[in-house]
């Protein structure tokens, strides 16, 4: 049997609602065609602990809101040929970044969640990654090669971009994607 080297694809879920991953899964039967061409090397839907080397395409959902996400994003950039911002949180910050409108939002957001809104055991956790002062869209931190806006982006759009990239073509977003 002929062995074809599959494209190594990763997906990452940073600060977002997972809706973009849901949209990715909404490709439905097209996922079967996709599975023939790709190897999913890292993803919230694949049990892999460490972001691997030599990744061809990485789709990233969500904005960067804490230090763990920041280091994962930087590592992904180092180890990926084509990095894609998937969805509005990754592209603009979106709802995740609304806390940027508060003063000292890194402290304020924890105060709000763990003290003001907690009915029992009011305490700010200390064993979780440090929250960043501001939430950033990906391109404020690393170089991003393609942007797929949308909240969430449609399954058809995600499929188009991935299919074009797998075929070695440059996706033409004109008239396909919608800002915000």
């Amino acid at each position, binding site marked *: 049997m002929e062995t074809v080297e599959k494209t190594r694809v990763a997906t990452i879920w940073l600060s977002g609602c997972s809706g973009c991953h849901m949209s990715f899964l909404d490709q439905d039967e097209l996922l079967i065609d996709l599975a023939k061409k790709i190897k999913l090397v890292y993803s919230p839907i694949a049990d892999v602990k460490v972001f691997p080397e030599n990744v061809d395409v990485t789709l990233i959902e969500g904005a960067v809101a804490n230090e763990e996400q920041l280091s994962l994003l930087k590592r992904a950039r180092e180890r990926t040929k084509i990095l894609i*911002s998937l969805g*509005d949180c990754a*592209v*603009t*910050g*979106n*709802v995740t*970044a*609304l806390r*940027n*409108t*508060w003063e000292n939002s890194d402290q304020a957001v924890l105060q709000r969640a763990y003290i003001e809104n907690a009915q029992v055991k009011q305490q700010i956790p200390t064993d979780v990654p440090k929250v960043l002062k*501001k939430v950033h*869209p990906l*391109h*404020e931190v690393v170089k*991003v090669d393609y*942007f797929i*806006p949308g*909240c969430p982006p449609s399954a058809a759009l995600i499929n188009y971009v991935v299919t074009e990239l797998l075929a070695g073509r440059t996706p033409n*977003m*004109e008239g396909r*994607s*919608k*800002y*915000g």
Partner: protein
Amino acid sequence: MTATTVTLKIDGLEVTVPEGTTILKAAKDNGIIIPTLCNLEGLSPYGGCRLCLVEISGSPKLFPACITPVSSGMEVTTQSERLTEYRKMAVQMLLAERTHICSVCVANDHCELQSLANQLGVDHVLFERNWTRLEIDSSHDFLVIDRNRCILCTRCLRVCDEIEGVHTLDLKLRGKDAQVIMDLDEHWGNSCSCTSCRKCAKVCPVGAIYIEGEPVSHTKHKDIAEFITERRQRKWKQ
């Protein structure tokens, strides 16, 4: 007596229009569409958004088509790589200036700023955002203003002043800090001059002024100023 006319070239097309016509109007009347945002037929031109910038042969400067009158022999270019770059930049600056989050905005999919971003291929914003947190005033019975979504196009001010004739709305402060205010910076619900005519909500290109409980797609009616102006001139009788 016929008005004096001027002949010029727009994108290579020779056009003849009455003297005093703006480049924008001359282009539009000849089927050439220049992108605009603050401009609205029926209201005085403002020249604030810089989307209608065009090139004129012989000058290195760019000119806002909405406030630049035509002159004889002028050669205007409305589409070029340079202009597209500047227009994209203008849209990105508007998106970065305040807190524009389409997914939670009443005007999502019915927004002129969003639609221009799409037309120009703006899929992300290069500039760091200001993340403003300005006052949202919902003290009026049904009109709401969210200043974080305002792009300071002043359409609402102009329609309030020039069409409704009450001048409830105005601006305070300057530059990026400028804000739309009611009367002498009263809460909208306390305004003694507002007639609650809704024209401000109808012409707002974004989701800054809207009617509570009403879909923006239903409220928006950007032709309202032109429509009323024509009716006042009894144009239907001609």
